[in-house]
């Protein structure tokens, strides 16, 4: 059993497991309930797991599809019951799992707020107290007296997210996305989740975005085949999980995969109309190799100088964004990444809200192979993605020597 060392525990799992039962006939299930005699076959979705989570901890859950992540989250959210063990939760749980699932299309937004809050266990008075904040956050005040069936899918998601995060949960369960919707609302929803973190709420965050898990979580749980494969400090577990994925020859997602908007995949220059500007956008990306600008480059390993220039448009109401750059191998694995936040570089925007930054890679150290560059425009904390520009350049690296591997490390020989 893993003990967090924190005093006030809000989640306690002692040998909690989940098995799904399979019956040949429906009647067998009824007979088993009546008689107590086992008439099913079962498979284990989650092996007995013990875990103690303290108030204010942010727990990350990683693992391949079918590892048991969703089962664990559903057990915590209360939509599944454990088959074995003891599960204790102290506090109100709110889950960002299937947003809007409890909405009834014929009911108004107003009534759906009250219905969803009632399911969460809130009284009418508590719901009334939270109502204004929910409506203001969702930003759909004028639609609240209309049936939800007249809402766009984005409006449904905004309202559902607003409810989930305004019922004053003690424990927040997030499956995959740190933000919902797009544009301004995506940023607001991300900020809302960060507020929970800063307020010392307990967060369970399940994601394939290893970068975000490592950046946000205090502890990470790696599930594999329904068992805990590793548990502990994010850097340690994420590294082990990354190695595992490589060994498995799995297709590894790039570190930043939850882009909220994507620019054209083939152009190196991206233009965004200023009138449509609601969140920071990438205006242009230029990639130069030895002074030549193009999309596909021939690169000399150890010799070529690569410059990536990113021009962006900021928004007055938001802090100046940050920029990240990822180099991917031909098989989709990330080979290297760099970001202004990580390197302590603060970007500036001018009076016209535009700004530029350039990163230089002298004596390009990667060995022969095909690589692509992706650029990210992120929030000032380097976590929330405003825009992802795929394949801004393709680098076909050639080398003269016979070195093996993917990179030449700085080195010196000394004959002794």
């Amino acid at each position, binding site marked *: 059993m893993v003990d967090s060392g924190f005093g006030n525990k809000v989640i306690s799992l002692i040998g909690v497991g989940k098995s799904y039962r399979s019956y040949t006939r429906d009647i067998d299930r*009824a007979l088993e*309930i*009546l008689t107590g005699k086992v008439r099913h076959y079962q498979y284990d979705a989650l092996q007995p797991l013990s875990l103690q989570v303290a108030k204010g901890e942010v727990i990350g859950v990683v693992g391949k599809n079918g590892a048991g992540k969703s089962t664990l989250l559903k057990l915590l959210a209360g*939509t*599944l019951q454990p088959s074995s063990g003891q599960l204790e939760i102290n506090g109100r749980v709110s*889950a960002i799992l299937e947003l809007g699932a*409890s909405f009834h299309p014929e*009911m108004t937004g107003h009534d759906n707020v009250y*219905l969803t809050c009632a399911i969460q266990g809130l009284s009418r008075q508590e719901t009334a107290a939270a109502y204004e904040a929910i409506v203001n956050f969702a930003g759909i005040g004028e639609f609240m007296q209309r049936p939800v069936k007249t809402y766009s899918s984005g409006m449904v998601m905004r309202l559902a997210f607003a409810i989930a995060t305004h019922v004053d949960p003690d424990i927040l369960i997030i499956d995959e996305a740190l933000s919902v919707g797009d544009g301004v609302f995506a940023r607001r929803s991300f900020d809302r989740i960060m507020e929970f973190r800063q307020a010392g709420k307990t967060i369970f965050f399940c994601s394939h975005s290893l970068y975000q898990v490592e950046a946000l979580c205090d502890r990470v749980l790696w599930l594999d085949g329904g068992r805990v494969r590793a548990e502990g400090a994010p850097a340690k577990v994420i590294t082990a999980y990354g190695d595992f994925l490589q060994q498995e020859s799995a297709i590894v997602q790039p570190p930043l995969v939850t882009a909220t908007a994507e620019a054209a995949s083939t152009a190196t220059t991206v233009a965004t109309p200023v009138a449509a500007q609601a969140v920071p956008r990438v205006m242009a990306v230029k990639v130069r190799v030895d002074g030549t600008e193009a999309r596909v480059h021939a690169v000399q390993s150890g010799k070529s100088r690569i410059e990536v220039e990113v021009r962006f448009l900021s928004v007055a109401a938001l802090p100046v964004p940050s920029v990240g750059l990822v180099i991917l191998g031909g098989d989709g694995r990330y080979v290297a990444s760099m970001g202004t936040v990580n390197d302590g570089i603060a970007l500036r925007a001018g009076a016209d809200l535009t700004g530029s930054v350039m990163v230089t890679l002298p004596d390009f150290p990667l060995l022969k192979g095909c690589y692509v560059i992706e650029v990210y425009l992120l929030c000032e904390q380097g976590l929330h993605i405003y825009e992802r520009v795929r394949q801004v350049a393709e680098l076909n690296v050639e080398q003269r020597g016979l070195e093996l591997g993917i990179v030449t490390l700085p080195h010196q020989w000394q004959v002794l």
Partner: protein
Amino acid sequence: MTFLLRLLRLCADSLSIPLLAPVKHRALVRMLVQREIASRTSGTALGRLWPLLQPALQILGFWFLFAVVYDMRNVRGPGFAQYMLLSMLPWLCFSEVLVRATGLFREFSPLFTRSRFPLEVLPTMALVMPMLVYTPVLVLTAMWLLGLVAALKAVVVIPLLLVWTLPLVLLCAVAGLFVRDFGQALPFVLTLLMYLTPILYFPDMLPAGMRIWLWLNPMSDWMLLIHAWLNGGVLPLESVARLLALWLLLLVPCWLWFRRTELHVRELL
């Protein structure tokens, strides 16, 4: 001793949890009733009047048939049409509740499979809407046929009948979930049961050899009780005792069955 304590606790839970669920989860029950009304009446011109109009119009139809067409108003004392109408409403309510109970889990599965929904509220949801619909209709019918005193007495008839129906609701909900044929067969069984219940005839009109059915059928006790209560007669204590005993006898195992099902329904649906 431990077994006895467990049994006592089970009995207490069986009585308290389903009966107190509407109080404990009143905000949720209220919103689920609104949800149901919205589902049933959305887009209609008469809106929320429809749930009340349906049984009321049904009763008017029966009145037209038996009182006007067959002219049975003055058959035997208080009148057959009056007897039949005041029997038919509780029966319609009873049968509607049971038929709905067979699909209860499937009806609410979008809620309890995706959110932390208290399953103990489900039996309430099978009962509360019929109670809200049939109580005023029965009160108005009693007022029309028997006067103000009977109307006031009629207020408690449907709620009491529905509380008594609770174990059967639990039973039908689970059976309807696991045995699909049950839901298909139940309307037919209820029609048969209606013919074996003194609704369309006075109890003494049943041939002597068949009167054992009146004793075996608890709904016959209900009919005796309802008419004695509304007409100011002496309450048949034997019927009261039998109904109460049957209710207590059924509630514990039915509740236990329902609770054991909880683990399965979230996986099954």
